[in-house]
Structures are given as structure tokens and as C-alpha cells.
């Protein structure tokens, strides 16, 4: 029964155990400071992005942005928890996403980028962001 993907077990602060593929859980340290709910959301995020990058899921960049936008439509507490966990687990792209959302909320900034415009700005500034990890 050969499996092509290695699995990793993660145990959270509230003793829940998750089993995930190694590619998804790039950084396995410090999970004990993250709760089960938050880790679950984070794993969703990582799975989505890894799968889309690897071509396993057929999703356009625009659809991915929409997915991200919905992903961060959560209450302030959850958002803070996501920021802390993303920081702890060093998931740069999720940290960017959640921090931008938080800044927009704090400063009451309306994100009136069209999807195309936002994609263009993202593309032209891609060079500034670490491409390692998710």
C-alpha cells in the first residue's frame, strides 16, 4: 500500500489531532499554541493554495482571490487568532492576507480594487514577496 505523499500529525492546544500531507503543513512546529478551530481554518487555506499552485485544483487567480476574500470574512477575534497563528507558523501569504484585512478594518478602508486591478498590482509587486512556502 504505497502512498506517494507523506502524512504528518499535528496536535493543537485543545488536544485535537489533525493528519495532513507534508506539503500542506510546511512548518510543523509550535502548533500547541493554536486552537483546533483556527488550525482547521489554516489547513483549509494551505490546502487550497498548495493545490491551486500544484495544479491539483482547477481554479483561476480571480477565483482564488475571491476565495481568500471570503476566507477572511470573520469576526475580529477570529481574525486576530488567524494573524497570530499565521505569524507563529510562518505562513507569509496568509499573514499578508489577514494583516491587510485587519488594517482595512482598523482604518476603515474600503477595498475598492477591481479584481483585475488588484491582480495587476499583485503581479507587479510579486518580486518583493518570498516565494517559499504557501
Amino acid at each position: 500500500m504505497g502512498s506517494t505523499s507523506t502524512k504528518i500529525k499535528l496536535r493543537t492546544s485543545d488536544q485535537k489531532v489533525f493528519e495532513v500531507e507534508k506539503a500542506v503543513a510546511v512548518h510543523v512546529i509550535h502548533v500547541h499554541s493554536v486552537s483546533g478551530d483556527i488550525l482547521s481554518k489554516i489547513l483549509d487555506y494551505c490546502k487550497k493554495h498548495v493545490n491551486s499552485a500544484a495544479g491539483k485544483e482547477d481554479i483561476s487567480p480571480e477565483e482564488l482571490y475571491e476565495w481568500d476574500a471570503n476566507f477572511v470574512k470573520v469576526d475580529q477575534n477570529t481574525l486576530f487568532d488567524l494573524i497570530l497563528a499565521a505569524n507563529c507558523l510562518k505562513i507569509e501569504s496568509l499573514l499578508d492576507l489577514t494583516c491587510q484585512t485587519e488594517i482595512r478594518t482598523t482604518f476603515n478602508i474600503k477595498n475598492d480594487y477591481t479584481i483585475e486591478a488588484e491582480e495587476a498590482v499583485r503581479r507587479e509587486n510579486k518580486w518583493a514577496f518570498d516565494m517559499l512556502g504557501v
Partner: protein
Amino acid sequence: MEGEGEEQTSIWNKETVPKVMKIVSTRLAQRDLISLLLLSPWIHRTLISYPSLWLSIDLREMNNAGGRLIAALSLPRYQHVKQISLEFAQDIDDDHLEVIKSKCLGSLQDLESLNLNGCQKISDKGIEAITSCCLKLKVFSIYWNVRATDEGVKHLVKNCKYIVDLNFSGCKHLSDKSLQLVADNYPELESLNLTRCVKMTDSGLQQVFVKCSFLQSLNLYALSSFTDEAYKKISVLSHLKFLDLCGAQNLSDDGLSCIAKCKKLVSLNLTWCVRVTDVGVIAIAESCTSLEFLSLFGIVGVTDKCLEALSKSCANTMTTLDVNGCIGIKRRSRDDLLKLFPYLRCFKVHS
């Protein structure tokens, strides 16, 4: 009432937020600053309109650095970039620099500082390409590049006439020829790092001393083949503040006594200068009264006498003193040293 609310929102968005963002953004690292661009078109427009935010490109330790640099330089907001750091960046080579020369010529016209430390794939060809784009360059650093030769330095001096700070540390193939080129072209040079440039000799070094009289910082770390012939000539550098002679095994008391004429010395590293005795150090003590940093690590020929002399003149300024391995000094415990130099904070320089 509704109209008022809308107007408030508009003022908030178009005036207040941008003002705050401008303040906040000056305190952000590059990555975070660029993240702000993604918040909203208004923020984007506002931040882009502040040229002072976009004077630096930081690609330290990043992979695909060549591609990233080209992408960054093709953005209009970096047209006046003043500082680029590629320190320990990977995947940047001569070809990338050639591309930049042919495509991004305009963007580098204001560049003042270029850090290529650890970019080991870059050779003379790349140095020629990049320096031909930044004629206003003042600071050039290419630490640990073993491909660079005197040819590369030839291109540098031909293109960049305003260099004041040069770091050739670890560029082991540079010879006296490079020193001649530097001496002939940079009379205003302030800082020079020649760590481990083992091909260089007294003759090349002397050229620099004679012609670069404004030198404030000179690093000759791990260069053991120079002799007093060159060391004595350091005395003409009246502005010298920082001098690293770690490993100068040929330096004698005579040589050090000449160096003592550089009265403005603040930092002096004499680690492993094994020929030095009290005579040389006392000469330094009597002349360099602003000394803050001194290492005598490994020198067995110095005794408590030199510490007393140093204490007489530099007790108020000395904050770092390394006398580890100075077996000739009997009273060198932490407490002993603090008695002589009450402001000492650091007792170890060399490991």
C-alpha cells in the same frame, strides 16, 4: 445628514488615511510597505506619490534575486532608487546585470549605494555592466567575491567617479593594481576594507595612503604580509578613526608609534599583532586620547604598564577592551579593568 456622513467618509479616505499611512509607512520594512499598496487604489496612489518611500530596494538573502531586481527596476516608482542591497541574495549573475544595463539604464542614475556582498556568481563582466549604469555611485561593496579581478576594478573606476566607501573584503584576487586604480581615482575616499585581499603588498598600500588622505576607516583584517614599510605611512592619514590590523604579525613598535600620529583614532584592533610591546601601545595611549575600542588579544609582550598609560588618557572614553591572552598583564580580571576604565562594557572582541 447623509450627505455629511458621506463627506466625512470621503475626507477620512482621501485625506486622513493617506496622511496616517504616510507616517506609518516610513517605519515599515519593505515587504510591509508594499503590502499597503494592496489595500485600496487610493492608498496605492497616495503612497506611490511619495518619492521618499521608494528610494531603497532590499533583496537581501532572497532567491531568484536577478529576476526580482529586474522586476523591481521596471516599476516607475523606483526610477530614483538610491540604495540596492543584494547581500547574500541567490541566483543573480552577470546576465541579469547585462539585462539591467540594456533595459533599466534610467532607473539607476541616482543610485548611491550598491551592496553585492556574497553574490558569488558576479564577475568582472557584471561589475562592468552595473557600474556603467550608476555613475553617481558612492558606496560599493562586493564582499567575498572570488571572481572579481583588477579588471573589474578598472571598470568601476572608469564609470563611478564619486566613490567614498569601498568594501573589497574577501576579494582575494585583487592585487596592487586595484590599489593603484583606487589611489589614482578616489582622492576623497573615506572608507576602505581590504580584509583577506592577500595578493596586495606594501607598495600598493602605500599608494593609497599617499593619495587618499581623507580615509577615516581602514580595514586590513587577516593580512599578514604587510610590513612596517607600509604601516609607518599610515601616519599621514590624519582623519583616521577606525583601523583594523588583526593579524598584522610584522607590525613592530616602530610601526605602531607612527600609527599613533593618527590622533583621531577611536577604534584600533591589534589582535595577534604579536611583535607589539608596551612601547608601541604606550605611544598610542599618549597620542590617541579618544580611543573607545581596543583589542590587544593574543599579544604576550604587553604588561600592566601599557594599561596604566591607556587609563591615564582614555579612561573616560574606553568602552571595549580585549586583553584576553595577554599573559604579560597580571591585573586583567573584569574588576581590575573596571578600576582603570570605569565605562568598559565589552571585554571580548576576538573569539
